[in-house]
């Protein structure tokens, strides 16, 4: 039946999934950069090239994410709310509440096992409560964002960190470090503060177990752990949490294709 592509152009990273008849064939992740149209092309090229998929093998492409409209070759654009829901439910069918910590926004969705969304909520107009702050802090600490999760788990004495402005958190981190706070303790404080903000969004919509966390932020074990601590229960994280929207998009594409063929 060929391939279906799901492409999620986020503000930080762009992610793609190629779905074959038997499931996921390959995935691709790259920084989004400024020119989103080009990035979208790149994601497609990479998936095609690596797996020897020719243009007419691609039966359908569904785009999603912040820059979805830049995927000019997409057959359809879907919101990342729907795509995350679809993606998560295919991987973790028991999940009813999904927390997506993306770069600019945090979203909370209530879903069912078919990936239908029942309700959702988005964070507000200030980047202070989303994943971006992780990148900002990682940069000033001169560590990779991939490392901060592990580091924060090593903390012995979490500091109180003020998450307010995502931009000014940088200077706060700098002055904390110069006061002699260790990077580990600082990160633990950051994770705690961010988790508390995310949690109040989560609580607003009401939670039904199981709860999953996805998006780039879910790759950060320190953040997941901090949220688990606040909530007092385990949070499921799929193997590649940043890919769920792309996966969901691909699955939606596949379902549409099936319907088309059937009718």
């Amino acid at each position, binding site marked *: 039946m060929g391939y279906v592509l799901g492409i999620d152009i986020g*503000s930080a990273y762009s992610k793609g999934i190629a779905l074959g008849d038997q499931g996921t064939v390959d995935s691709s992740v790259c920084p989004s950069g*400024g*020119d*989103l*149209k*080009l990035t979208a092309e790149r994601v497609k090229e990479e998936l095609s090239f690596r797996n020897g998929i020719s243009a007419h093998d691609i039966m359908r492409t569904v785009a999603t994410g*912040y*820059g979805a409209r830049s995927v000019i070759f997409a057959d359809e654009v879907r919101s990342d709310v729907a795509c995350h829901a679809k993606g998560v439910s295919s991987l973790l069918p028991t999940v009813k509440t999904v927390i997506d910590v993306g770069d*600019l926004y945090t979203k909370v969705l209530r879903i069912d096992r078919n990936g239908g969304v029942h309700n959702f909520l988005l964070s507000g*107009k*200030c*980047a202070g409560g989303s994943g*971006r702050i992780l990148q900002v802090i990682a940069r000033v600490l001169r560590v990779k964002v991939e490392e901060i999760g592990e580091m924060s788990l090593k903390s012995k004495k979490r500091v109180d960190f003020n998450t*307010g*402005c*995502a*931009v*000014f958190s940088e*200077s706060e981190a*700098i*002055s904390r*470090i*110069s006061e002699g706070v260790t990077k580990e303790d600082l990160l633990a404080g950051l994770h705690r503060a961010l988790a508390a903000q995310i949690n109040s969004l989560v609580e607003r919509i009401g939670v039904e177990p199981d709860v999953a966390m996805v998006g780039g932020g879910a790759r950060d074990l320190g953040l997941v752990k901090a949220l688990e601590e606040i909530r007092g229960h385990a949070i499921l994280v799929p193997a590649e949490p940043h890919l769920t929207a792309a996966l969901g998009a691909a699955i939606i594409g596949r379902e549409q294709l099936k319907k088309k063929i059937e009718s």
Partner: protein
Amino acid sequence: MTSYFAGIDVGSTMTKVVILNQGIVASVIGPTGPEHRRLANRVMDEALNKAQIGFEAVTYVVSTGYGRINVPFADKQFTEIACQARGIASLFPRARTIIDIGGQDVKAIKIDATGRTIDFVMNDKCAAGTGRFIEVIADALGVGLDEVGELSLQSHHPAKISNICTIYAQQEVAASLAEGVPISDLLAGVHQSLAERINTMVNRLRVEDAVIVTGGGAKNRGLLKALSEQLGHEILVPEEPLITGAFGAALLGKEIVEKARQTRTLLQTKQRILEEIEIQ
């Protein structure tokens, strides 16, 4: 023996030192690193070298700025508001309104004919209203801070920046750039957006002439133009807008000493040795 007075302004991005006797003998601007203390030392050292004096020759040191509490060798601290007011009043006797555009905050100060502060407002909660906004955007556009002003002046159609949050605006600007909006238009738009925010804040003071702009933002001609349009007032800028705070601090120190001499009170000044403070 001539007495020297030093003012040190530890800002969020730059640390400035001014050394005075009758007039300015030396001024230095250096970056503020994460380790305030050591840098304060280094910049001070450099200034002393430039003035060709030893630290023991300095009678009084006043620190100011965002990192003012981290200057171990200062005799007294003042806020930037008091220092800017003092410095500007001495440079511009006509000055009534001062707008200080820094990286961490923006302040507006109203002073009377004698140079006394009569009112002030400041913004430091959200980066969107401060010089940092420009830094972040310039960075996203790959333009140096000293170029942004001139570049934006070339624009005829300033772009509308619809996001307030610095982070969202950065994203917006990057996207517009990719769509082919000229950098100069984007920068002009960014300046307008910041000028609007500053204007709203400053207006709470009921702006009066003459308006002086200081701080790093005063080096940005594009921002100044946008600001002066918004305010509806002409804007004056000191020759070196970065050091007016440090200058004012030094002046305040000088006044304290003079007053003490007049009233013959003993000043408790610290031992004038600049120690090297090591931080791992």
